């Protein structure tokens, strides 16, 4: 029996519940209904290339990218530490997922209570110590902070899993061959953990690009990201064709970004395989 048939139930599921809805998006993106009936059109797609939408798209990709990088920088040492002392058991791991079990909206409101300029806990504290206050709510930094906060566990988990199972004998072999700690990290550990890193990047970057609650709350509604605009199309203007077109453009941009990042993972071991 070839193992690949184990994937069969999933493949069936996938075709019905992922492919078909996707086809519907294509359908909406490329058609328009008017007096003459249904017709094929590029007008939605063309509208998507107007500057105000491209700016939103660019900002979304940029903030998501920065947030992903910060997550990576924070998560990697964390995963290393956790993997090294993995006798702590899964509890240490659960402790990092646990915050995500409290509703996301509530946690974002809590950040407001902590970081607001006049009334926030942090600034009240700083003012008492006669230190300068942190006026962050409403700035892109707050948005990136919100994204990092929300997606950090998604980066930690896969990297930790990758690291925890690196064959100890490989590490020892490197040591025997004369590598010092830093060289070992660079030449052995990091390459072996790449699949986990790629998974992490995927699970952070993609949802980050489409988030709109974070910019609304932490960005004081001043930053319009692509997620907001797409939501408007489906709910406010009822222009589903345009909403679908924007989603398509977004999907393609993300796939391209991911493909660029994939160059370093030839065998698609990260499971994030593209092209």
């Amino acid at each position: 029996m070839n193992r690949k048939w184990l994937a069969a139930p999933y493949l069936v599921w996938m075709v019905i519940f992922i492919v078909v809805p996707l086809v519907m998006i294509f359908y909406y993106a490329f058609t328009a209904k008017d007096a003459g009936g249904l017709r094929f059109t590029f007008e939605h797609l063309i509208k998507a290339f107007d500057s105000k939408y491209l700016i939103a798209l660019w900002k979304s990709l940029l903030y998501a990218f920065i947030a992903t990088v910060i997550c990576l920088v924070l998560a990697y040492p964390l995963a290393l530490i956790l993997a090294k002392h993995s006798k702590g058991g899964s509890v240490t791991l659960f402790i990092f997922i646990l915050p995500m079990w409290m509703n996301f909206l509530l946690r974002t409101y809590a950040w407001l209570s902590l970081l607001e300029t006049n009334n926030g806990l942090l600034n009240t504290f700083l003012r008492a110590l006669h230190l300068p206050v942190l006026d962050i709510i409403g700035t892109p930094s707050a948005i990136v902070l919100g994204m990092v906060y929300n997606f950090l566990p998604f980066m930690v988990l896969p990297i930790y899993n990758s690291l925890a199972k690196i064959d100890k004998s490989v590490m020892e072999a490197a040591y025997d061959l004369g590598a010092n700690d830093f060289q070992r990290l660079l030449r052995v550990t990091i390459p072996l953990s790449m699949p986990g890193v790629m998974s992490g990047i995927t699970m952070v970057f993609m949802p980050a690009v489409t988030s709109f609650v974070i910019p609304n709350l932490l960005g004081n509604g001043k930053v319009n990201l692509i997620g907001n605009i797409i939501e408007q199309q489906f709910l406010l203007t009822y222009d589903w064709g345009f909403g679908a077109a924007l989603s398509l453009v977004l999907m393609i941009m993300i796939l391209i970004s991911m493909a660029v990042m994939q160059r370093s993972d030839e065998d698609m071991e990260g499971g994030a395989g593209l092209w």
Partner: protein
Amino acid sequence: MKKIALLLAVLMFVFTGCAGNVKNDPSKPLAGTTIYVYNWGDYIAEDTIERFTKETGIKVIYETFDSNETMYAKYKSGAVNYDVLIPSDYMIEKLIAENELLPLNFDNIPNAKYIDESFRNLGYDPENKYSVPYFWGTLGILYNKKMVQEEVDSWDILWDSKYKGQIIMMDSVRDTFAVALKRLGYSLNSTDKAQVDEAVASLIEQAPLVQAYLMDQVKDKMIGEEAALAVIYSGEAVYTSEYNENLEYAVPKEGTNFFVDAMVIPKTCQNKEAAEAFINFMNDPQIAYNNTKYVGYSTPHTEARDMLDEEIKNNPAAYPPQEIIDKCEVFVDLGPEMTVYYNDKWNELKASLR
């Protein structure tokens, strides 16, 4: 694993088994029927539904939405056959225009007589055939009198550079454009592109002074004194003044938006009499009073309003005098082309920020 399955089974049994028995009770002719009600979140007193079921035997499946638009999307998809919807004025108008609503049989809704005269035959339902108002309010300026020492009576104050960084506007296309349009002396339902463009230009000009564009967060920000001025609904203004006595509400002289949320019956209704019984029940004076007390918004129900405390029923923020109401306009659906135009302009405004 087994224990969890058992626990789940017990839980399911407990929850579903509570459906109760239905007997034939002549005083409850509609007992045993079920209706689907779709309302704003947290917009009804906690025991109203229970009381309704107890009194009439009609079961209610109650769902909530967070905006007229998500309600509309869900409703139109035909995914659920709703019996009663409680949308806002412009949405009701849109549904009427699209032939989605059933005319009400007021013989089954005798309690509708308690609705104040001035709430009948409003723009969105001119013949008063399809709706019974539930709550209403105005859009106005909430200000902190410690931080704002002058009289607040015009939308102009939100463009005053003295308050730079202390102004909060609404993160909503219609409401923010309404402020800009009214300030320029135009209708907040303007379909004149030149007027809309002028309004957007004024908003872009105002932008550097604005601290934030928010929706529900306005309340907490103002209570916490993060800003001096904000655009807000009257119902929310009443809420905030409970927590911070420095906050006052004013309706500007140029006029503003007057909104009404009302109960309607869509054509997907499976049991019209039961739906009408629900609407009737909601207008029973005691129930209307309970709902008003819980929700805190302004009620169109004369008896319910009478039963309120002196403080609230004479609070000009909650119940402004007629001359103010005369200057208010209800939102009207702009039609698809103008809706897209407004929205594109809104995105232009947002793109120009920082």
